[in-house]
């Protein structure tokens, strides 16, 4: 009998895509699959979590689960772990989930593996190192549950076969402890499709030379249509473009039909966020840039010369 649980993040629009991806994998691994969803919207999300394989959903709708960072969720999750002793707990690689997993590890003394791209068994996790060129398999030992943070889009979400009977168990927020609290939320408005959903992602790096040149990427994205603009960590750290555009280890993971890397060298940090793209086009002045090793088509030259010509070409072909 193996018990596999999924830490399911929920919002006003239902469960996060990652929760459904992880549940789909959990069905392969566990005889008994449950989801833990804490935050407003949790109970409403239970049916969809159930449809993806959770036979039990531990759901807590209390606001502190959303507004207070990590501690209430970790305390509640630890209580459930102590009571039911799952073998494996899968988390998405989000900021909030990392915080909760790190705290739970202190309470359980369990193994914690981050950056997993596969979970071959309840005591195994696989990750990638060296720019994705090596797979590393790690055996997880010590007290249950093993805690594994899985990279986005490592699995494809599919509903379970047949009708699933979901049991919802209500979880209340624990008594208050000193903790950090969200007092304001700021969303950066973005035009066009979301980075994770666009068919084409056009990312810029240092090779663009000046923040103003990101305008060229915006123009190309608009000409293509279903395209979004991403960025390397270097230019985000330099303040050229907001963090929400960052693709890579510490940013978003994208798997578009075509990924255009413009003036990006291809550091490991970046590559792990885009190596799942079906096709890669790279434009870079440096013929030795590691990004060219991933490229289906590599153009060695100045992006600022190639981009205007490409925008004109795409506009001519699409009539946009």
């Amino acid at each position, binding site marked *: 009998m193996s018990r596999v649980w999924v830490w399911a993040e929920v919002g006003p629009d239902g469960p996060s895509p990652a929760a459904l991806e992880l549940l789909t994998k959990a069905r392969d691994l566990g005889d008994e699959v449950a989801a833990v969803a804490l935050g407003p919207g949790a109970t409403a999300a239970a049916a969809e979590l159930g449809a993806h394989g959770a036979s039990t959903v531990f759901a807590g709708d209390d606001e502190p689960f959303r507004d207070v960072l990590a*501690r209430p969720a970790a305390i509640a999750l630890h209580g459930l772990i102590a009571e039911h002793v799952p073998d494996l707990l899968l988390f998405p690689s989000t900021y909030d989930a990392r915080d909760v997993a*790190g705290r*739970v*590890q202190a309470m359980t003394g369990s193994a914690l593996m981050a950056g997993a791209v596969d979970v071959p068994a309840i005591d195994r996790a696989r990750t990638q190192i060296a720019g994705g060129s*090596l797979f590393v398999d790690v055996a997880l030992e010590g007290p249950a549950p093993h805690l594994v943070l899985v990279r986005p889009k490592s699995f494809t979400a599919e509903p379970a076969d047949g009708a699933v009977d979901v049991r919802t168990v209500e979880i209340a927020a624990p008594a208050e402890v000193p903790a950090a609290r969200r007092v304001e939320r700021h969303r950066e408005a973005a035009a066009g499709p979301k980075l994770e959903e666009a068919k084409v992602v056009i990312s810029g790096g240092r090779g663009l030379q000046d923040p103003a040149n990101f305008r060229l990427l915006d123009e190309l994205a608009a000409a293509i249509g279903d395209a979004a603009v991403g960025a390397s960590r270097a230019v985000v750290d330099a303040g050229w473009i907001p*963090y929400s555009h960052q693709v890579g280890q510490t940013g978003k993971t994208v798997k578009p039909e075509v990924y255009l890397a413009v003036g990006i060298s291809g550091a490991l940090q970046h590559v792990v966020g885009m190596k799942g793209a079906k096709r890669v086009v790279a434009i870079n002045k440096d013929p030795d840039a590691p990004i060219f090793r991933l490229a289906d088509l590599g153009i060695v030259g100045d992006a600022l010369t190639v981009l205007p010509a490409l925008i004109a*070409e795409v506009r001519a072909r699409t009539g946009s």
Partner: protein
Amino acid sequence: MDISVLVKSIPDPGGDTVLGDDFLVRRAGDGTLDPGDEFAVEAALQLAEASDGEVIVITMGPEGAAAAVRRALSMGAHRAVVVTDDALRGADALATARVLAAALRHGPFDLVLAGVESTDGYTGTVPMTVAELLDLPSATFAKRLEIVDGVARIQRQTEDGYDVVECPLPAVVTLTAGATEPRYPTLKGIMGAKQKPLETLGLSDLGLTAADVAPTQRVVGVEPAPEKAAGQVVPADDTSAARIADLLADAKVL
């Protein structure tokens, strides 16, 4: 206010590393201060300077890790603690957190700062595990940090913007790259760093045993990922735009 900064020594990006039969990475030469930690060191220095406080940098690692804290000392930190012990070879995230928490218990602090994750390991959970072990609140992914009326006020990075988060002290706060502009050590700072207290501790000094830091995870295999077929890499010319557009059309996205 007194601030402890958790830092990591990582292999010199320019140095040679070799993967041993035990899957541990052997590194040539001394480590270097993880560049991701410099933002936290800088934030600590600014807060301490404004309040006449002290900055202590704490690291765990092999003996060469002292080079990393020396860099922080030359930036202006007041003293350093290096925890090094043979039993810590191959230590995992939990062992690291237990050691750092034990080192923090040694000295008073108002605030603990750290980077969000190491540049060589990327686990990104150790500061929260430390916070839990010390029963402290935490605020992570801060792209801005200020202390207002004894409360840490943070702009916390989110997937689509940022949240303003308020956290009572003492607390553990992690800072993103770019949160501050780390200063370069001055020559005076580099010379002065050699005179600053650098304490080296072993596990037993922290009241820990080898059993407390026994790894719960073990690398059991490494294999090459399937190689992608080599693509075409060509110099830019008049046909570049058309070639890229052809690829887009072929992928049915035009």
